[in-house]
Protein backbone atom coordinates (compact mmCIF):
# COMPACT_ATOMS: atom_id res chain seq x y z
CA UNK A 1 0.00 0.00 0.00
CA UNK A 2 1.35 3.38 -0.90
CA UNK A 3 1.11 5.99 1.79
CA UNK A 4 0.05 9.22 0.14
CA UNK A 5 0.93 12.53 1.71
CA UNK A 6 -2.04 14.28 3.25
CA UNK A 7 -1.43 17.16 0.92
CA UNK A 8 -2.20 15.13 -2.27
CA UNK A 9 -4.64 17.24 -4.25
CA UNK A 10 -8.21 16.00 -4.16
CA UNK A 11 -9.25 14.74 -7.56
CA UNK A 12 -12.84 14.99 -6.52
CA UNK A 13 -14.52 16.74 -3.65
CA UNK A 14 -18.16 16.43 -2.77
CA UNK A 15 -19.07 19.09 -0.24
CA UNK A 16 -21.97 19.01 2.16
CA UNK A 17 -24.10 16.71 0.06
CA UNK A 18 -27.72 16.21 1.05
CA UNK A 19 -29.96 13.98 -0.96
CA UNK A 20 -33.45 12.77 -0.20
CA UNK A 21 -36.17 10.83 -1.94
CA UNK A 22 -39.51 12.09 -0.82
CA UNK A 23 -39.33 11.70 2.93
CA UNK A 24 -36.30 9.43 2.97
CA UNK A 25 -32.98 11.18 3.34
CA UNK A 26 -30.31 9.07 1.74
CA UNK A 27 -27.45 11.49 2.47
CA UNK A 28 -27.25 14.33 4.98
CA UNK A 29 -24.44 16.87 4.82
CA UNK A 30 -21.81 14.42 3.67
CA UNK A 31 -18.33 15.59 2.67
CA UNK A 32 -16.32 13.21 0.57
CA UNK A 33 -12.94 13.86 -0.96
CA UNK A 34 -11.02 11.51 -3.18
CA UNK A 35 -7.31 12.14 -3.68
CA UNK A 36 -5.40 11.60 -6.87
CA UNK A 37 -4.05 8.05 -7.04
CA UNK A 38 -5.58 6.64 -3.88
CA UNK A 39 -7.98 3.82 -3.23
CA UNK A 40 -10.82 5.22 -1.22
CA UNK A 41 -13.31 2.92 0.45
CA UNK A 42 -16.85 3.73 1.50
CA UNK A 43 -18.36 1.38 4.05
CA UNK A 44 -21.47 1.25 6.17
CA UNK A 45 -24.54 -0.84 6.91
CA UNK A 46 -27.24 -1.57 4.32
CA UNK A 47 -29.17 1.49 3.26
CA UNK A 48 -26.52 3.83 4.69
CA UNK A 49 -26.32 5.80 1.46
CA UNK A 50 -23.14 4.37 -0.04
CA UNK A 51 -24.51 3.71 -3.51
CA UNK A 52 -26.30 7.05 -3.37
CA UNK A 53 -22.93 8.73 -2.87
CA UNK A 54 -21.52 7.10 -6.00
CA UNK A 55 -24.69 7.99 -7.89
CA UNK A 56 -24.23 11.61 -6.93
CA UNK A 57 -20.61 11.54 -8.04
CA UNK A 58 -21.44 10.11 -11.47
CA UNK A 59 -24.56 12.21 -11.89
CA UNK A 60 -27.35 9.65 -11.71
CA UNK A 61 -28.66 11.52 -8.67
CA UNK A 62 -28.70 15.26 -8.25
CA UNK A 63 -28.41 16.23 -4.59
CA UNK A 64 -30.78 18.86 -3.21
CA UNK A 65 -27.84 20.49 -1.48
CA UNK A 66 -24.07 20.51 -1.89
CA UNK A 67 -21.49 20.83 -4.62
CA UNK A 68 -19.18 18.53 -6.46
CA UNK A 69 -15.72 19.66 -7.48
CA UNK A 70 -13.84 17.61 -10.01
CA UNK A 71 -10.23 18.30 -10.99
CA UNK A 72 -10.28 21.63 -9.27
CA UNK A 73 -13.44 22.92 -10.91
CA UNK A 74 -16.94 23.19 -9.60
CA UNK A 75 -19.21 20.98 -11.62
CA UNK A 76 -22.47 22.31 -12.98
CA UNK A 77 -25.59 20.22 -13.37
CA UNK A 78 -24.36 17.68 -15.87
CA UNK A 79 -25.93 14.54 -17.30
CA UNK A 80 -24.35 11.19 -16.43
CA UNK A 81 -23.04 10.73 -19.95
CA UNK A 82 -21.33 14.10 -19.83
CA UNK A 83 -19.72 13.21 -16.53
CA UNK A 84 -18.54 9.94 -18.02
CA UNK A 85 -16.92 11.92 -20.82
CA UNK A 86 -15.17 14.11 -18.25
CA UNK A 87 -13.45 11.01 -16.93
CA UNK A 88 -15.52 9.16 -14.37
CA UNK A 89 -16.26 5.49 -15.01
CA UNK A 90 -18.15 3.08 -12.82
CA UNK A 91 -19.51 -0.36 -12.12
CA UNK A 92 -22.83 -1.21 -10.54
CA UNK A 93 -23.93 -3.07 -7.44
CA UNK A 94 -26.27 -5.17 -9.57
CA UNK A 95 -24.17 -5.82 -12.62
CA UNK A 96 -25.25 -3.63 -15.54
CA UNK A 97 -23.56 -5.14 -18.54
CA UNK A 98 -24.81 -5.16 -22.12
CA UNK A 99 -26.04 -8.72 -21.85
CA UNK A 100 -26.53 -9.44 -25.51
CA UNK A 101 -23.07 -8.26 -26.44
CA UNK A 102 -19.79 -10.16 -26.27
CA UNK A 103 -17.11 -9.49 -23.68
CA UNK A 104 -15.02 -7.75 -26.31
CA UNK A 105 -17.92 -5.55 -27.44
CA UNK A 106 -18.73 -4.64 -23.85
CA UNK A 107 -15.16 -3.53 -23.31
CA UNK A 108 -15.13 -1.70 -26.64
CA UNK A 109 -18.25 0.15 -25.49
CA UNK A 110 -16.19 1.31 -22.52
CA UNK A 111 -13.96 3.13 -24.98
CA UNK A 112 -16.75 5.12 -26.59
CA UNK A 113 -15.72 8.30 -24.79
CA UNK A 114 -12.32 8.06 -26.41
CA UNK A 115 -13.51 7.56 -29.97
CA UNK A 116 -14.00 10.51 -32.26
CA UNK A 117 -14.59 9.47 -35.89
CA UNK A 118 -17.69 11.05 -37.43
CA UNK A 119 -20.85 9.20 -38.26
CA UNK A 120 -20.24 9.43 -41.98
CA UNK A 121 -16.81 7.80 -41.77
CA UNK A 122 -18.31 5.09 -39.60
CA UNK A 123 -21.06 4.51 -42.12
CA UNK A 124 -18.46 4.20 -44.85
CA UNK A 125 -16.34 1.98 -42.58
CA UNK A 126 -13.28 3.74 -43.85
CA UNK A 127 -10.56 6.29 -43.10
CA UNK A 128 -10.43 7.62 -39.54
CA UNK A 129 -13.24 5.34 -38.37
CA UNK A 130 -11.40 2.20 -39.44
CA UNK A 131 -8.08 3.38 -38.02
CA UNK A 132 -9.72 4.26 -34.74
CA UNK A 133 -11.56 0.97 -34.56
CA UNK A 134 -8.32 -1.00 -34.89
CA UNK A 135 -6.46 1.19 -32.43
CA UNK A 136 -9.13 0.81 -29.78
CA UNK A 137 -9.45 -2.85 -30.47
CA UNK A 138 -5.80 -3.17 -29.40
CA UNK A 139 -6.48 -1.25 -26.21
CA UNK A 140 -9.44 -3.52 -25.49
CA UNK A 141 -7.25 -6.58 -26.01
CA UNK A 142 -4.74 -5.20 -23.49
CA UNK A 143 -7.50 -4.99 -20.92
CA UNK A 144 -8.68 -8.49 -21.76
CA UNK A 145 -5.14 -9.77 -21.22
CA UNK A 146 -4.83 -7.81 -18.00
CA UNK A 147 -8.04 -9.32 -16.60
CA UNK A 148 -7.19 -12.79 -17.93
CA UNK A 149 -10.46 -13.19 -19.77
CA UNK A 150 -9.08 -14.11 -23.19
CA UNK A 151 -11.09 -17.31 -23.31
CA UNK A 152 -14.44 -15.51 -23.09
CA UNK A 153 -13.82 -12.59 -25.42
CA UNK A 154 -16.50 -13.68 -27.91
CA UNK A 155 -19.03 -15.00 -25.38
CA UNK A 156 -22.22 -12.99 -24.88
CA UNK A 157 -21.80 -11.79 -21.31
CA UNK A 158 -25.33 -12.77 -20.32
CA UNK A 159 -24.13 -16.37 -20.42
CA UNK A 160 -21.14 -15.88 -18.14
CA UNK A 161 -21.13 -16.87 -14.48
CA UNK A 162 -21.61 -14.06 -11.98
CA UNK A 163 -17.97 -13.71 -10.96
CA UNK A 164 -16.80 -13.34 -14.54
CA UNK A 165 -19.55 -10.81 -15.28
CA UNK A 166 -18.24 -8.69 -12.44
CA UNK A 167 -14.80 -8.92 -13.98
CA UNK A 168 -16.02 -7.91 -17.44
CA UNK A 169 -17.81 -4.96 -15.89
CA UNK A 170 -14.55 -3.88 -14.29
CA UNK A 171 -12.95 -4.26 -17.70
CA UNK A 172 -15.53 -2.01 -19.32
CA UNK A 173 -14.95 0.65 -16.67
CA UNK A 174 -11.18 0.34 -17.01
CA UNK A 175 -11.41 0.62 -20.78
CA UNK A 176 -12.40 4.25 -20.55
CA UNK A 177 -9.01 4.97 -18.93
CA UNK A 178 -10.87 7.38 -16.74
CA UNK A 179 -9.34 9.56 -14.08
CA UNK A 180 -11.72 8.20 -11.50
CA UNK A 181 -13.16 4.74 -11.17
CA UNK A 182 -16.20 4.10 -8.99
CA UNK A 183 -16.74 0.47 -8.00
CA UNK A 184 -19.98 -0.41 -6.24
CA UNK A 185 -19.37 -3.66 -4.34
CA UNK A 186 -17.01 -5.21 -6.90
CA UNK A 187 -16.65 -8.35 -4.82
CA UNK A 188 -20.16 -8.90 -3.57
CA UNK A 189 -21.33 -12.47 -3.95
CA UNK A 190 -17.93 -13.84 -4.91
CA UNK A 191 -16.14 -16.80 -3.41
CA UNK A 192 -12.77 -16.42 -1.71
CA UNK A 193 -10.70 -17.17 -4.76
CA UNK A 194 -12.64 -14.79 -6.96
CA UNK A 195 -12.31 -12.11 -4.30
CA UNK A 196 -8.56 -12.54 -4.18
CA UNK A 197 -8.36 -12.22 -7.96
CA UNK A 198 -10.52 -9.13 -7.91
CA UNK A 199 -8.38 -7.56 -5.17
CA UNK A 200 -5.30 -8.10 -7.27
CA UNK A 201 -6.95 -6.60 -10.36
CA UNK A 202 -8.06 -3.54 -8.44
CA UNK A 203 -4.64 -2.95 -6.93
CA UNK A 204 -2.89 -3.49 -10.26
CA UNK A 205 -5.43 -1.35 -12.10
CA UNK A 206 -4.49 1.56 -9.88
CA UNK A 207 -0.83 1.00 -10.70
CA UNK A 208 -1.08 0.09 -14.40
CA UNK A 209 -3.80 2.42 -15.59
CA UNK A 210 -3.09 5.22 -13.15
CA UNK A 211 -6.67 5.27 -11.98
CA UNK A 212 -7.93 6.73 -8.76
CA UNK A 213 -10.48 4.37 -7.27
CA UNK A 214 -13.43 4.80 -4.96
CA UNK A 215 -15.08 1.55 -3.92
CA UNK A 216 -17.87 0.27 -1.73
CA UNK A 217 -17.24 -3.01 0.01
CA UNK A 218 -18.74 -4.96 2.87
CA UNK A 219 -15.88 -7.39 3.46
CA UNK A 220 -13.77 -5.62 6.08
CA UNK A 221 -10.73 -7.78 5.41
CA UNK A 222 -10.75 -6.66 1.80
CA UNK A 223 -11.26 -3.03 2.75
CA UNK A 224 -8.37 -3.06 5.20
CA UNK A 225 -6.10 -4.63 2.58
CA UNK A 226 -7.03 -2.39 -0.31
CA UNK A 227 -7.92 1.02 0.93
CA UNK A 228 -5.71 3.99 1.64
CA UNK A 229 -8.52 5.79 3.38
CA UNK A 230 -11.93 4.66 4.55
CA UNK A 231 -15.08 6.65 5.05
CA UNK A 232 -18.00 5.29 7.05
CA UNK A 233 -21.64 6.16 6.42
CA UNK A 234 -24.55 5.38 8.70
CA UNK A 235 -28.11 6.49 8.09
CA UNK A 236 -26.90 8.93 5.47
CA UNK A 237 -24.37 10.62 7.72
CA UNK A 238 -20.63 10.34 7.73
CA UNK A 239 -19.60 8.98 11.13
CA UNK A 240 -15.89 8.46 10.54
CA UNK A 241 -13.19 9.03 7.98
CA UNK A 242 -9.53 8.08 8.08
CA UNK A 243 -6.85 5.43 7.64
CA UNK A 244 -8.03 1.81 7.90
CA UNK A 245 -6.37 1.33 11.29
CA UNK A 246 -8.12 4.32 12.79
CA UNK A 247 -11.44 3.15 11.45
CA UNK A 248 -11.01 -0.33 12.84
CA UNK A 249 -10.58 1.09 16.34
CA UNK A 250 -13.21 3.79 16.17
CA UNK A 251 -15.87 3.19 18.81
CA UNK A 252 -18.67 4.82 16.79
CA UNK A 253 -17.89 2.64 13.81
CA UNK A 254 -17.68 -0.49 15.92
CA UNK A 255 -21.08 0.26 17.41
CA UNK A 256 -22.78 1.16 14.17
CA UNK A 257 -21.27 -1.27 11.76
CA UNK A 258 -18.26 -3.39 12.63
CA UNK A 259 -19.90 -4.89 15.70
CA UNK A 260 -22.79 -6.02 13.59
CA UNK A 261 -20.46 -7.20 10.86
CA UNK A 262 -18.53 -9.36 13.35
CA UNK A 263 -21.71 -10.92 14.66
CA UNK A 264 -22.91 -11.87 11.20
Amino acid at each position, binding site marked *: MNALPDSAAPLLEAKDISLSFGGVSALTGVDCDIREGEIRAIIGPNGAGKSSMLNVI*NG*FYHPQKGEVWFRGEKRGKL*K*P*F*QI*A*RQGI*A*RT*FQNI*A*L*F*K*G*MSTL*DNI*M*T*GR*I*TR*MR*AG*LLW*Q*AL*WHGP*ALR*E*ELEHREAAERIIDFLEIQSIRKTPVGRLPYGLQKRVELG*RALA*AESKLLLLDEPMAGMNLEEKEDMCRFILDAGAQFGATIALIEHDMGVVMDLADRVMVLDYGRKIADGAPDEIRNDQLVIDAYLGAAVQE
Partner: protein
Amino acid sequence: MSPGVLNTIEVVLNGLMSGVLYSLVALGFVLIFKASGIFNYAQGVMALFAALTLVGFQTGQVPFAHLLNAVFGTDYHHWSSGMHHAAAIALTLLVMVGFAFLVEKLVLRHLVNQAPIILFMATIGLAFFMEGVGDLMWGPDLKALDIGLPSGGSLWWEEVTRAWAAPGAEYYGMYIDVLDVWATVIALALVAALTVFSQYTRTGRALRAVADDHQAALSVGISLRAIWVIVWSIAGMVALVAGIMWGAKSGVQFSLSLIALKALPVLILGGFTSIPGAIIGGLIIGVGEKLFEYTVGPMIGGATENWFAYVLALFFLMFRPQGLFGDKIIERV
Protein backbone atom coordinates in the same frame (compact mmCIF):
# COMPACT_ATOMS: atom_id res chain seq x y z
CA MET B 1 -40.85 -30.02 -63.81
CA SER B 2 -44.60 -29.87 -63.96
CA PRO B 3 -46.31 -26.51 -64.41
CA GLY B 4 -47.85 -26.92 -60.96
CA VAL B 5 -44.44 -27.08 -59.27
CA LEU B 6 -43.16 -24.20 -61.38
CA ASN B 7 -46.17 -22.08 -60.46
CA THR B 8 -45.58 -22.79 -56.82
CA ILE B 9 -41.95 -21.77 -57.16
CA GLU B 10 -43.07 -18.55 -58.81
CA VAL B 11 -45.44 -17.82 -55.93
CA VAL B 12 -42.71 -18.49 -53.38
CA LEU B 13 -40.24 -16.26 -55.22
CA ASN B 14 -42.70 -13.41 -55.35
CA GLY B 15 -43.52 -13.96 -51.71
CA LEU B 16 -39.86 -13.82 -50.74
CA MET B 17 -39.43 -10.57 -52.61
CA SER B 18 -42.39 -8.84 -51.02
CA GLY B 19 -41.27 -10.34 -47.72
CA VAL B 20 -37.89 -8.64 -47.91
CA LEU B 21 -39.65 -5.28 -47.92
CA TYR B 22 -41.74 -6.29 -44.91
CA SER B 23 -38.50 -7.28 -43.21
CA LEU B 24 -36.99 -3.92 -43.96
CA VAL B 25 -39.91 -2.03 -42.50
CA ALA B 26 -40.04 -4.35 -39.50
CA LEU B 27 -36.36 -3.60 -38.97
CA GLY B 28 -37.24 0.07 -38.64
CA PHE B 29 -39.72 -0.86 -35.90
CA VAL B 30 -37.27 -3.12 -34.10
CA LEU B 31 -34.50 -0.53 -34.06
CA ILE B 32 -36.71 2.08 -32.45
CA PHE B 33 -38.30 -0.43 -30.10
CA LYS B 34 -34.96 -1.72 -28.87
CA ALA B 35 -33.41 1.68 -28.39
CA SER B 36 -36.32 3.40 -26.70
CA GLY B 37 -39.01 0.85 -25.90
CA ILE B 38 -41.39 2.65 -28.24
CA PHE B 39 -43.62 0.86 -30.67
CA ASN B 40 -43.61 3.41 -33.45
CA TYR B 41 -47.06 3.39 -34.96
CA ALA B 42 -45.98 6.23 -37.25
CA GLN B 43 -43.54 4.05 -39.19
CA GLY B 44 -46.06 3.49 -41.98
CA VAL B 45 -46.92 7.15 -42.28
CA MET B 46 -43.21 7.90 -42.31
CA ALA B 47 -42.92 5.76 -45.45
CA LEU B 48 -45.82 7.67 -46.99
CA PHE B 49 -44.40 11.01 -45.98
CA ALA B 50 -40.95 10.14 -47.32
CA ALA B 51 -42.42 9.05 -50.64
CA LEU B 52 -44.56 12.21 -50.89
CA THR B 53 -41.55 14.37 -50.15
CA LEU B 54 -39.45 12.56 -52.71
CA VAL B 55 -42.06 13.04 -55.42
CA GLY B 56 -42.45 16.66 -54.38
CA PHE B 57 -38.74 17.30 -54.80
CA GLN B 58 -38.55 15.36 -58.04
CA THR B 59 -41.34 17.31 -59.66
CA GLY B 60 -40.28 20.63 -58.20
CA GLN B 61 -43.46 21.19 -56.21
CA VAL B 62 -43.62 24.13 -53.86
CA PRO B 63 -44.18 22.75 -50.36
CA PHE B 64 -47.35 24.05 -48.63
CA ALA B 65 -48.39 25.56 -51.96
CA HIS B 66 -52.12 25.48 -51.17
CA LEU B 67 -51.64 27.08 -47.81
CA LEU B 68 -49.30 29.77 -49.14
CA ASN B 69 -51.55 30.57 -52.04
CA ALA B 70 -54.57 30.81 -49.80
CA VAL B 71 -52.80 33.12 -47.37
CA PHE B 72 -50.98 35.36 -49.83
CA GLY B 73 -53.36 35.12 -52.76
CA THR B 74 -50.56 33.88 -54.98
CA ASP B 75 -50.66 31.04 -57.45
CA TYR B 76 -47.42 29.11 -57.10
CA HIS B 77 -47.34 25.38 -57.55
CA HIS B 78 -43.93 24.53 -58.91
CA TRP B 79 -40.68 26.33 -58.33
CA SER B 80 -38.83 24.41 -61.00
CA SER B 81 -39.40 21.66 -63.46
CA GLY B 82 -37.90 19.22 -61.00
CA MET B 83 -34.56 17.74 -60.10
CA HIS B 84 -32.54 14.64 -60.65
CA HIS B 85 -33.56 11.45 -58.78
CA ALA B 86 -30.33 11.26 -56.84
CA ALA B 87 -30.57 14.86 -55.66
CA ALA B 88 -34.20 14.37 -54.69
CA ILE B 89 -33.38 11.22 -52.71
CA ALA B 90 -30.50 12.94 -50.92
CA LEU B 91 -32.73 15.89 -50.02
CA THR B 92 -35.50 13.61 -48.82
CA LEU B 93 -32.99 11.80 -46.61
CA LEU B 94 -32.04 15.16 -45.12
CA VAL B 95 -35.70 15.89 -44.48
CA MET B 96 -36.08 12.54 -42.69
CA VAL B 97 -33.04 13.28 -40.52
CA GLY B 98 -34.51 16.69 -39.75
CA PHE B 99 -37.75 14.96 -38.86
CA ALA B 100 -35.84 12.68 -36.46
CA PHE B 101 -34.37 15.73 -34.75
CA LEU B 102 -37.80 17.29 -34.37
CA VAL B 103 -39.35 14.12 -32.99
CA GLU B 104 -36.62 13.91 -30.37
CA LYS B 105 -36.83 17.57 -29.49
CA LEU B 106 -40.60 17.98 -29.48
CA VAL B 107 -41.83 14.57 -28.40
CA LEU B 108 -39.41 12.00 -27.01
CA ARG B 109 -37.45 14.28 -24.73
CA HIS B 110 -40.62 15.26 -22.91
CA LEU B 111 -41.82 11.71 -22.45
CA VAL B 112 -38.74 10.15 -20.86
CA ASN B 113 -39.66 7.53 -18.25
CA GLN B 114 -43.32 7.46 -19.27
CA ALA B 115 -45.16 4.17 -19.54
CA PRO B 116 -44.85 2.41 -22.91
CA ILE B 117 -48.54 2.90 -23.62
CA ILE B 118 -48.11 6.67 -23.35
CA LEU B 119 -45.22 6.58 -25.79
CA PHE B 120 -47.28 4.42 -28.11
CA MET B 121 -50.16 6.90 -27.97
CA ALA B 122 -47.71 9.67 -28.76
CA THR B 123 -46.66 7.87 -31.93
CA ILE B 124 -50.31 7.46 -32.94
CA GLY B 125 -50.65 11.20 -32.57
CA LEU B 126 -47.48 11.63 -34.54
CA ALA B 127 -48.87 9.44 -37.31
CA PHE B 128 -52.01 11.55 -37.71
CA PHE B 129 -50.00 14.72 -37.50
CA MET B 130 -47.58 13.62 -40.21
CA GLU B 131 -50.38 12.46 -42.42
CA GLY B 132 -51.89 15.93 -42.16
CA VAL B 133 -48.59 17.69 -42.72
CA GLY B 134 -47.88 15.46 -45.71
CA ASP B 135 -51.23 16.40 -47.25
CA LEU B 136 -50.74 20.06 -46.52
CA MET B 137 -47.21 20.11 -47.83
CA TRP B 138 -47.61 18.17 -51.02
CA GLY B 139 -51.32 17.88 -51.71
CA PRO B 140 -53.62 14.88 -51.22
CA ASP B 141 -53.73 13.63 -54.81
CA LEU B 142 -52.41 10.25 -55.90
CA LYS B 143 -48.91 10.64 -57.29
CA ALA B 144 -46.79 8.46 -59.52
CA LEU B 145 -43.32 7.74 -58.30
CA ASP B 146 -40.53 6.86 -60.69
CA ILE B 147 -36.87 6.96 -59.82
CA GLY B 148 -35.78 5.34 -63.04
CA LEU B 149 -35.66 1.76 -61.84
CA PRO B 150 -36.61 -0.71 -64.55
CA SER B 151 -39.95 -2.40 -64.09
CA GLY B 152 -42.21 -4.89 -65.81
CA GLY B 153 -41.95 -8.65 -66.27
CA SER B 154 -38.56 -10.13 -67.01
CA LEU B 155 -38.68 -11.69 -70.46
CA TRP B 156 -35.35 -13.35 -69.88
CA TRP B 157 -36.58 -15.16 -66.79
CA GLU B 158 -39.78 -16.16 -68.58
CA GLU B 159 -37.65 -17.65 -71.32
CA VAL B 160 -35.37 -19.50 -68.92
CA THR B 161 -38.16 -20.95 -66.84
CA ARG B 162 -40.23 -22.00 -69.80
CA ALA B 163 -37.42 -24.37 -70.67
CA TRP B 164 -37.73 -25.98 -67.23
CA ALA B 165 -41.19 -27.27 -67.90
CA ALA B 166 -41.64 -30.76 -69.25
CA PRO B 167 -41.61 -30.67 -73.04
CA GLY B 168 -45.07 -30.23 -74.45
CA ALA B 169 -46.52 -28.98 -71.16
CA GLU B 170 -48.71 -25.95 -71.30
CA TYR B 171 -46.45 -23.48 -69.49
CA TYR B 172 -45.53 -19.96 -70.43
CA GLY B 173 -42.76 -19.15 -67.98
CA MET B 174 -42.59 -17.38 -64.68
CA TYR B 175 -43.59 -13.80 -64.19
CA ILE B 176 -41.14 -11.83 -62.08
CA ASP B 177 -41.30 -8.05 -61.95
CA VAL B 178 -37.84 -6.55 -62.38
CA LEU B 179 -38.81 -3.80 -59.99
CA ASP B 180 -39.34 -6.42 -57.29
CA VAL B 181 -35.89 -7.80 -57.94
CA TRP B 182 -34.40 -4.34 -57.55
CA ALA B 183 -36.38 -3.73 -54.41
CA THR B 184 -35.11 -7.00 -53.01
CA VAL B 185 -31.50 -6.28 -53.84
CA ILE B 186 -31.67 -2.79 -52.36
CA ALA B 187 -33.46 -3.95 -49.23
CA LEU B 188 -30.96 -6.76 -48.72
CA ALA B 189 -28.05 -4.37 -49.19
CA LEU B 190 -29.56 -1.99 -46.64
CA VAL B 191 -30.17 -4.77 -44.12
CA ALA B 192 -26.59 -6.03 -44.59
CA ALA B 193 -25.17 -2.52 -44.25
CA LEU B 194 -27.15 -1.86 -41.08
CA THR B 195 -26.03 -5.15 -39.59
CA VAL B 196 -22.36 -4.44 -40.30
CA PHE B 197 -22.76 -0.90 -39.01
CA SER B 198 -24.26 -2.05 -35.73
CA GLN B 199 -21.59 -4.71 -35.22
CA TYR B 200 -18.39 -2.90 -36.04
CA THR B 201 -18.68 0.82 -35.42
CA ARG B 202 -18.72 2.97 -32.34
CA THR B 203 -22.21 4.27 -33.01
CA GLY B 204 -23.46 0.81 -33.87
CA ARG B 205 -22.17 -0.50 -30.58
CA ALA B 206 -23.73 2.46 -28.80
CA LEU B 207 -27.06 1.58 -30.42
CA ARG B 208 -26.85 -1.95 -29.14
CA ALA B 209 -25.71 -0.75 -25.74
CA VAL B 210 -28.70 1.53 -25.37
CA ALA B 211 -30.96 -1.31 -26.45
CA ASP B 212 -29.53 -3.48 -23.66
CA ASP B 213 -29.30 -1.15 -20.67
CA HIS B 214 -29.95 2.59 -20.49
CA GLN B 215 -28.16 3.17 -17.18
CA ALA B 216 -25.05 1.33 -18.20
CA ALA B 217 -25.07 3.12 -21.55
CA LEU B 218 -25.15 6.49 -19.80
CA SER B 219 -22.32 5.40 -17.52
CA VAL B 220 -20.00 4.79 -20.46
CA GLY B 221 -20.75 8.20 -21.94
CA ILE B 222 -23.51 7.49 -24.43
CA SER B 223 -26.09 10.23 -24.92
CA LEU B 224 -29.54 8.67 -25.16
CA ARG B 225 -30.90 11.63 -27.07
CA ALA B 226 -28.21 11.39 -29.73
CA ILE B 227 -28.98 7.70 -30.10
CA TRP B 228 -32.70 8.39 -30.45
CA VAL B 229 -32.03 10.87 -33.23
CA ILE B 230 -29.84 8.34 -35.00
CA VAL B 231 -32.35 5.54 -34.60
CA TRP B 232 -35.23 7.66 -35.89
CA SER B 233 -33.04 8.78 -38.79
CA ILE B 234 -32.33 5.18 -39.69
CA ALA B 235 -36.04 4.42 -39.41
CA GLY B 236 -36.63 7.41 -41.72
CA MET B 237 -34.16 6.02 -44.22
CA VAL B 238 -35.80 2.60 -44.08
CA ALA B 239 -39.18 4.28 -44.52
CA LEU B 240 -37.90 6.13 -47.57
CA VAL B 241 -36.67 2.94 -49.22
CA ALA B 242 -39.95 1.15 -48.50
CA GLY B 243 -41.90 4.22 -49.65
CA ILE B 244 -39.98 4.30 -52.92
CA MET B 245 -40.53 0.64 -53.65
CA TRP B 246 -44.21 0.52 -52.75
CA GLY B 247 -44.81 3.93 -54.27
CA ALA B 248 -43.20 2.88 -57.55
CA LYS B 249 -45.52 -0.13 -57.69
CA SER B 250 -48.86 1.33 -56.85
CA GLY B 251 -48.43 5.07 -56.67
CA VAL B 252 -47.97 7.26 -53.62
CA GLN B 253 -51.24 7.31 -51.74
CA PHE B 254 -52.57 6.88 -48.26
CA SER B 255 -52.86 3.09 -48.44
CA LEU B 256 -49.09 2.98 -48.54
CA SER B 257 -49.00 3.68 -44.83
CA LEU B 258 -51.24 0.67 -44.25
CA ILE B 259 -48.96 -1.76 -46.08
CA ALA B 260 -46.24 -0.73 -43.69
CA LEU B 261 -48.43 -1.84 -40.82
CA LYS B 262 -47.97 -5.39 -42.10
CA ALA B 263 -44.75 -5.09 -40.16
CA LEU B 264 -46.86 -5.59 -37.04
CA PRO B 265 -47.63 -9.25 -37.72
CA VAL B 266 -44.05 -9.61 -38.86
CA LEU B 267 -42.93 -8.42 -35.46
CA ILE B 268 -45.29 -10.71 -33.62
CA LEU B 269 -43.76 -13.58 -35.55
CA GLY B 270 -40.18 -12.50 -35.21
CA GLY B 271 -40.24 -10.94 -31.78
CA PHE B 272 -40.12 -7.23 -31.13
CA THR B 273 -36.51 -7.21 -30.06
CA SER B 274 -34.87 -9.42 -32.61
CA ILE B 275 -33.29 -8.20 -35.83
CA PRO B 276 -32.91 -11.68 -37.35
CA GLY B 277 -36.50 -12.22 -36.20
CA ALA B 278 -37.68 -9.21 -38.19
CA ILE B 279 -35.91 -10.47 -41.29
CA ILE B 280 -37.15 -14.05 -41.08
CA GLY B 281 -40.61 -12.95 -39.92
CA GLY B 282 -40.90 -10.72 -42.98
CA LEU B 283 -39.98 -13.55 -45.30
CA ILE B 284 -42.43 -15.95 -43.64
CA ILE B 285 -45.27 -13.46 -43.92
CA GLY B 286 -44.36 -12.59 -47.49
CA VAL B 287 -44.23 -16.21 -48.65
CA GLY B 288 -47.08 -17.28 -46.39
CA GLU B 289 -49.61 -14.80 -47.69
CA LYS B 290 -48.76 -15.43 -51.33
CA LEU B 291 -48.87 -19.20 -50.94
CA PHE B 292 -52.13 -19.03 -49.00
CA GLU B 293 -53.69 -16.84 -51.64
CA TYR B 294 -52.48 -19.22 -54.34
CA THR B 295 -53.63 -22.43 -52.70
CA VAL B 296 -56.58 -21.61 -50.43
CA GLY B 297 -57.56 -18.22 -51.85
CA PRO B 298 -59.57 -19.46 -54.84
CA MET B 299 -61.68 -21.67 -52.57
CA ILE B 300 -62.75 -18.86 -50.28
CA GLY B 301 -63.13 -16.02 -52.69
CA GLY B 302 -59.61 -14.59 -52.75
CA ALA B 303 -58.29 -11.32 -51.37
CA THR B 304 -56.78 -13.22 -48.48
CA GLU B 305 -53.61 -11.15 -48.56
CA ASN B 306 -55.41 -8.41 -46.66
CA TRP B 307 -55.87 -10.47 -43.55
CA PHE B 308 -53.73 -13.59 -43.73
CA ALA B 309 -50.73 -12.00 -42.01
CA TYR B 310 -52.82 -10.89 -39.07
CA VAL B 311 -54.45 -14.27 -38.60
CA LEU B 312 -51.08 -15.98 -38.73
CA ALA B 313 -49.83 -13.54 -36.13
CA LEU B 314 -52.83 -14.25 -33.93
CA PHE B 315 -52.06 -17.93 -34.17
CA PHE B 316 -48.50 -17.24 -33.10
CA LEU B 317 -49.62 -15.14 -30.18
CA MET B 318 -51.45 -18.14 -28.79
CA PHE B 319 -48.52 -20.50 -28.93
CA ARG B 320 -45.39 -18.40 -28.78
CA PRO B 321 -46.17 -14.89 -27.57
CA GLN B 322 -42.54 -13.81 -27.48
CA GLY B 323 -42.13 -14.56 -31.17
CA LEU B 324 -39.66 -16.84 -32.88
CA PHE B 325 -36.57 -15.08 -31.60
CA GLY B 326 -37.84 -12.59 -29.06
CA ASP B 327 -36.71 -12.54 -25.48
CA LYS B 328 -38.79 -14.84 -23.38
CA ILE B 329 -41.30 -12.88 -21.37
CA ILE B 330 -40.87 -13.82 -17.75
CA GLU B 331 -43.48 -12.51 -15.40
CA ARG B 332 -42.00 -11.89 -11.97
CA VAL B 333 -44.30 -12.59 -9.05
